[in-house]
């Protein structure tokens, strides 16, 4: 059982989504089956960014792993709510990193 934490910074949009995708693919290929994405340093997420997060979650689920998200800022939480991502069961959303890690373990 391996755990990996990703902390995207600044903006996650069409310009940065590809780099983030490469990062989580590397994490998945390294054998990690629990992925935490910490949004505390992310100020903005676009539709392209949301798609990459969903892709990461689908990838982990196909491997039998789990994904948790934490520390969503107000703008990011609102976009999650509007898109319906906050109601998905494919990942869990937590306000703090500790509670997210506890949920993964």
């Amino acid at each position, binding site marked *: 059982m391996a755990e990996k934490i990703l902390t995207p910074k600044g903006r996650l949009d*069409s310009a940065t989504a590809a780099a983030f995708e490469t990062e989580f693919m590397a994490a998945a290929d390294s054998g990690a089956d629990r992925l935490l994405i910490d949004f505390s340093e992310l100020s903005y*997420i*676009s*539709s*392209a960014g*949301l*798609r990459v997060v*969903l892709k990461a979650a*689908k990838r982990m689920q196909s491997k039998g792993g789990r994904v948790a998200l934490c520390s969503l800022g107000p*703008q990011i939480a*609102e*976009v*999650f*709510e*509007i*898109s*319906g*991502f906050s*109601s*998905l*069961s*494919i990942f869990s959303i937590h306000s703090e990193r500790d509670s997210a890690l506890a949920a993964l373990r």
Partner: protein
Amino acid sequence: MIHSQLHSLIVFFGGLGLFLSSINRIGAHSIQLGGRRLRQTLARHTSNPALSPLAGTTLGALVQSASGVTAILVGLVVAGVINIPSALSMMLWANIGSSALVLVASIDLQVLGLAILGIAGIWLYFDQSGPEPRRAALEALFTLSLLLLGIGLMHTGTEGLSGGDTLEPASAAAGIASEIKLWIVHIAGASALLGLIFGAIAAIVTQSASGTAITIMAAFQAGLMPFGAAEMVVTGAVLGSGLSALVVGLVTRRGSQRMLQVFQGLTKIIGMALLLALLLLERALDLRLIGTAIAWLTTTPNRQLALLYLTCEASPLLVHAVTGRWVARALEVLAPPAPGESLAHPRFIYPEAVSDPELALLLAGREQRRVAQLLPGALPNGTPPPDAADIPPAQVGAIGVRLAGEIGLFLASVAGSPLTREQTDLLANLHNRNEVLRNLHETLADLTRTIQEARPYAAAAALANALAEGVGALLMCVDDAAQSEDPFDVDLLLQLSSDRGDVVDGMRRRVIGAEGRSDPDSQQAVYIMTSLFERTVWLIQRYANQLRSSPPKA
């Protein structure tokens, strides 16, 4: 004598009004009457090079307007029914077709017009609840009869006017009529150049070279101008039609419309320049050229004018035959293709596939996945497919609506074929999905507009931005599910499109609280935007349900 001539002038005037109002309406009726069947017929005829001239000539004869023909051909090119070379060829032949009315006008058709008017008018009166196609056909016939009657009245009026050499200025009205006559003769008949300019301006203003030619033929018959001046006005009318097409083409954005207009303008102007040179040489040097050939065919002056008009309209064909390669190069520079036009063409469905329902449904499913693929590009900052990357969201949405419309018509045609039960189920499912996709594109167009209108209000703009990103992500998931039809993706889409009533209430309270109650425009923008968002989510759920209940992948 005075009363008789005034009566003739009024008859001519009434006929002119009837003629001009009918000539505009007859094209519209022809288009309405034709619809999909006209497009299918044109597509079939243009795929056979030998039938393309016939299709073009018929189109020109029915529509009687170069701009009307161009509009139809642009629609056919954009819809992918015909290709650009076919459209250019049809446009040249449509010019010949538009001469038909001028030739008809050189003979008196008042009695025929009255007979058709009687039949069509009485039939329309008693057939008020008849089927729409039959009523459209009768209304087209009714308009045609008014047009013929208008031409007939102009003939009658001009015969009355030409009965006397001059109008006797014994009354004020007759004096004014006499002044008008002298003015026209002075303007149009003073020199070849003035006649040419007069004809060009008249054709540009009325947007009908054939209408101008017919009016001038009537004026000539009434003795309002000499034959030489009438010749120049008729020639000028065709030149004006070419100039008008070129100017419209050059101010139009890139694309098929610009290409067809510029082509029409260039070939007509070059053709008319050559023809005018020959006409002026013939006059100056007393040579036996075009005028002599026409006089050999008919000795009636009005028919000579009609044949001259036909020659003018045929000149672009000759120009294209000789200079086609150079014109094509000029078009590449002056009217390059617009981005997105090929995107609007159906890539899978085609009319002949209807005869094989299994193939037709497969193709309709593929075409429909293209419509779903366009969804993310229909929102500001969305992620369109690579071939739509440079196209504005509103245009992407319009293409989506157009394609869904094409698929809808195609599916309706498939419904007319004998189908198995499985095929009927699949057809119904594809039809429902298609309706949802079309509604989604229409709703997204409204949402995009509202998002842009909300920009001036700070809190509303922040919500607009979040909505654009959130809905954009949802649309990408719609695309994923549409392409794969994987049950996992479809289930995910169903979860994502769950009811958002509470979310919308929360958004409204938050934004309206932040903006304050003093700004009704901002409040209205927020209400419209959030209502459209709710509708979008509801449509996505309907689409997901259709995907879940669909038979094996179409």
